């Protein structure tokens, strides 16, 4: 196993792939979270009946394989002649996918803030947006944090599927190296290790935030 043909430039190639994985994940999580917060608040404000169409639409993103979504998204942008690069398509689809999950997390977290606490805030004269900003947002953020970290880690892993659109992210980069060197197990182990290294800090951050916030509850 230590007798390998793997060179530094191969490793660098894989690191570049990991960079792509991180970039796409970062963009998707940022955009998806923003959209998810907006849609989550909209869902709560509209109530279950009026937001049913939105719920149905978002449910599609969670019930159809991401791979199919990516292919469909790519085909759609071609038909609509958007002329998007695979990178753009990947980011757009992954963002929507993230937003679909994030909306549910945000809705659940807002609903978990006790109605009596919100009523107390309103009774002090705080208006809706002040109640949302000073009471609901901080409490809901705490409740949502573990799920949100889980979502981020999920997107990091699911971003591997963009290789189907020809993107060279971490897994695809590893595959290319494998094809050249014919040492699949060794290279996949390195690839897996890199995924671990990418996820670990995020998971730790989640644990840290949870610990820091919990004594105040």
């Amino acid at each position, binding site marked *: 196993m230590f007798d390998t043909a793997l060179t530094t430039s191969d490793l660098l190639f894989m690191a570049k792939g990991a960079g792509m994985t991180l970039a796409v994940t970062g963009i998707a999580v940022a955009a998806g979270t923003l959209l998810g917060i907006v849609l989550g608040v909209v869902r709560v404000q509209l109530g279950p009946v009026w937001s049913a169409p939105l719920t149905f639409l978002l449910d599609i993103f969670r019930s159809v394989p991401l791979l199919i979504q990516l292919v469909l998204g790519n085909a759609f942008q071609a038909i609509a002649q958007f002329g998007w690069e695979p990178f753009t398509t990947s980011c757009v689809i992954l963002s929507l996918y993230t937003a679909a999950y994030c909306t549910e997390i945000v809705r659940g977290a807002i609903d978990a803030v006790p109605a009596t606490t919100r*009523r107390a805030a*309103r009774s002090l004269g705080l208006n809706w947006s002040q109640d949302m900003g000073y009471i609901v947002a901080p409490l809901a953020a705490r409740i949502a944090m573990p799920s949100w970290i889980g979502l981020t880690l999920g997107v990091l892993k699911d971003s591997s599927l963009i290789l189907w659109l020809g993107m060279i992210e971490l897994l695809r980069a590893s595959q290319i190296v494998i094809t050249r060197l014919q040492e699949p197990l060794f290279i996949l182990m390195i690839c897996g290790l890199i995924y671990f290294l990418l996820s670990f800090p995020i998971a730790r951050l989640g644990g840290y935030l949870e610990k820091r916030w919990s004594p105040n*509850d």
Partner: protein
Amino acid sequence: MIEIENVRKSFGPLEVLKGIDLTVKKGEVLTVIGGSGSGKSTLLTCINGLEPIDSGRILVDGTHVHAKSTDINKLRCKIGIVFQQFNAFPHLTVLENVTLAPRKVKKMSRAEAEEIAIKQLNHVGLGEKRDVYPSRLSGGQQQRMAIARALAMSPDYMLFDEVTSALDPQLVGEVLDTLKMLADDGMTMILVTHEMSFARDVSDRVAFFHQGVMAEIGPPKQIFEDPQNEETRKFLSNVR
């Protein structure tokens, strides 16, 4: 002055307020007693505009609470309310709990708000606890904090909705003492309570609610010693 005129309110098919008429004058302490489901708590949340009403009207110092044109948040600064659940904001310290509304609603500076908050916290005996989070407080302390939080808005009226019902028996006294002190200071108050001896002690008038109707109102001496209404008599003989 709080004027309640023929107020009706239903939750679905259930009519909880069946035409209430009531006037509370400045400086008066009114206690509302009655069984569960008599509508007494609902009336308090209606006065504050937290619940809409179906018909009738409520005027606070001449301002129509449920009118569209009323700035309800401004009006709420005048009317403090404390609930059965303590409703502490768990992510804020005791001091932050109390200063939040003065700063954000009344746009006071932090220093100004803190000065008022500390005064109110000292008033309810929580001066020492200003920097801890509510989770470190006992139920009675949390409830006193909620009172200080409402008082920090310098309201003209205070509404108390069964504020001792969720407390352990040994913690009830400290909260009642705080209420007593407020009453002695001349605050205009409406209290919904199950503490009969307290009601008799602090009230100017006592109202008895029964199934959405104000069955009887009068000075505590009359209500407790010589109730005119059959239902009042039944209720009082049960709680004793």
